[in-house]
């Protein structure tokens, strides 16, 4: 409990509260420590984005929230508290039946690359019915009505899509079908894992517009996982930066993009066109995320960090609040604040040549 108290909003309201979550994969080479002590709070109705390079543990984190990790994975430690009205449940303690009812009805997870998300031998309508019936909704007319509304919301032709087999729809359409299906049971919590990867630019745009539209019209909390920072910038209220299985910075979207305090976040933001849209060169951070079987001692980012000192190599910086709605895990965040992340940017550019 103690590590998460800082995160809890003053009114104590939350949809999801994750406390000190540790997840490992058993691989041939050893234990992959994919999530290493993650804590955060998701407030009702807000959108929290998780950003970070590929391999930082974002998907693993998302999957563990609905306990859909592959069988080689193990949640070693932690709590995932889900709150509905006055009731608080730990997802990790649920039995099979509770878990099945929790999935989709309480928390819908829309997967990364949902190209293959639908059973190829069943029509979309049959799969909609499957979903509704599994959660005790049996009135066909009502289901149809709601699904048609949702399809219109995601700019799909309801008649055609409901009748179609998955292979008759394009990738972008399938992604939107899954998003619409995710909202069928009005879940208070939705997780979107890389909703736009594997789509072409135009389709990406339309999916983003659809998401924004839905978020305005409907009331649910959203966890958005993406390495696409512009997507996060457009949709998120708060942004959590993840590196090597840990949260290194959690802040509101404005601070994240204009006053990042963790060198890694600085590097990420610097690598993409900025929020306002003035094009900057795409420069990535030199090096790559560490091997999570044996992550670096101290701050895991130190091999790639221009601010690193001896302390960084031996002691792990905790995630601490440094301002209103802003937490960071870095020994030298003040230095970053003073130079506006300049050293990180120069370092990236120099290495990029």
């Amino acid at each position, binding site marked *: 409990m103690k590590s998460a108290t800082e995160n809890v909003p003053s009114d104590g309201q939350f949809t999801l509260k994750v406390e000190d979550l540790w997840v490992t994969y058993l691989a041939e080479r050893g234990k992959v420590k994919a999530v290493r002590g993650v804590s955060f709070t998701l407030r009702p109705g807000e959108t929290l984005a998780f950003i970070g390079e590929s391999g930082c543990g974002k998907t693993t984190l998302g999957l563990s929230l609905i306990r859909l990790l592959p069988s080689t994975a193990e949640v070693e430690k932690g709590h995932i508290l889900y709150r509905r009205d006055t009731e608080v449940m730990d997802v990790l303690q649920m039995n099979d039946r509770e878990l099945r009812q929790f*999935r989709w009805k309480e928390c*819908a997870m829309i997967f990364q*690359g949902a190209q293959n998300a639908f059973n*190829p*031998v069943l029509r979309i309508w049959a799969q909609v019915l499957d*979903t509704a019936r599994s959660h005790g909704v049996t009135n066909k007319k009502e289901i149809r009505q709601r699904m048609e509304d949702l399809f219109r919301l995601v700019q799909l032709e309801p008649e055609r899509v409901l009748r179609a087999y998955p292979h008759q729809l394009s990738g972008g359409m399938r992604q939107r079908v899954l998003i619409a299906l995710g909202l069928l049971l009005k879940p208070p919590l939705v997780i979107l894992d890389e909703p736009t990867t594997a789509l072409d630019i135009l389709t990406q745009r339309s999916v983003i517009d659809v998401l924004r539209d839905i978020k305005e019209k409907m009331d649910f909390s959203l966890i958005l996982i993406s390495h696409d920072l512009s997507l996060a910038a457009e949709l998120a209220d708060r942004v959590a930066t993840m590196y090597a299985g840990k949260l290194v910075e959690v802040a509101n979207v404005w601070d994240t993009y204009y006053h990042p305090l963790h060198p890694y976040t600085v590097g990420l933001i610097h690598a993409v066109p900025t929020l306002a849209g003035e094009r900057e060169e795409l420069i990535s951070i030199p090096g790559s995320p560490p091997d999570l079987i044996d992550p670096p001692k101290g701050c895991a980012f130190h091999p790639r960090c221009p601010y690193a000192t001896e302390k960084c190599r031996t002691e792990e910086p905790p995630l601490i609040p440094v301002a209103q709605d802003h937490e960071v895990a870095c020994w030298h965040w003040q230095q970053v604040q003073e130079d506006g992340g300049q050293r990180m940017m120069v370092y990236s550019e120099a290495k990029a040549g």
Partner: protein
Amino acid sequence: MTTTSLAQSTPSRRFDVLYWLRRLSRNFILRRVLMALAKIYVVITLTFFIVRLMPTNPIEAYVNELIDQYGFTYQEARDQAAALYGIDLEASLWTQYLEYMKNLLHGDLGTSYRSKGTPVAKMIAKFLPWTLFSVGVSLLISFTLGMLLGMIMAYRRGSVLDHVLTTIASIFSSIPNYLVGMMILVFLGVQWKIFPITKMRGAMSPGMKPELSWAFIKDIFYHATMPILTYVLTTIGGWMLAMKSNTINTLGEDYVTVAKARGLKESRIITSYVGRNASLPLFTQLAISIGFIVGGSALIEFIFVYQGVGQLLLNSINYRDYPVMQGVFLVITIAVILANFLAEFVYGWLDPRIRVQ
């Protein structure tokens, strides 16, 4: 008047012909039918000639017998044989072939050499139902049971049960069926006397009338028990292993994970999401195996003295009874091609990715 109408109708008819030809060539079903017919034709032709390349034939044997035992001259013996078998021995192979094909087109499979004068079609009609029955029942059992066990193995993979079943399946699918048949005969029949083999002989008990009665159904199942057991034991392993590997692959598909995320009931996921998709490829194999089993039924029916086409085929080979041999080959061929033909449609019907563009 007639001339004008002719002149007028010719261009439009030609147009029609072209139109229909074009449509037909694009027609999926028709193309398959033509392919099937072509295959049947090739097999008939090959069988006709291969059968005649076999050393010694019954007519020669009969001719020799007449010469040796009754002192016929060669010419007399040949005339006698020709009259008896109703064939023209002087005709060239080519003429015989044309004659055979002409008769075939009229549905005439010829008459048996050995059971002199009995039409081959009649013999096949008598023997074929038993093969279709025993093979059909076996396939149904081994296919459904094999799929079920395969799925269980996949769901419990790595468990003791999985290892035991996988080992058994691999062993059984690699032993030839006649060996299994012999073992059943020797151990279950002769040694331990679990099956009263003499009573179980034949396709049904003597005096039993084919009718739709419980007694009759029970009786034919009783007589088919050993062949069915053999077929099931030798084919089930293949189904189990194929289904296991398909199921494991399907379990790794995104749509199964998403189905779980959607909170679907486990039973629904197992049947409609995993089972249905994992079994799709097996339906193609099902058709192929029909041919294999019918083709491989000869030794089994011989071992258990079961009156199916396999038995008929063995006998006809023994006695060089060409017309019967050809007839049986023809029927087996048609059965295999028909089964493949059906399989494609069943597959298309089960898999919308093929059916619906």
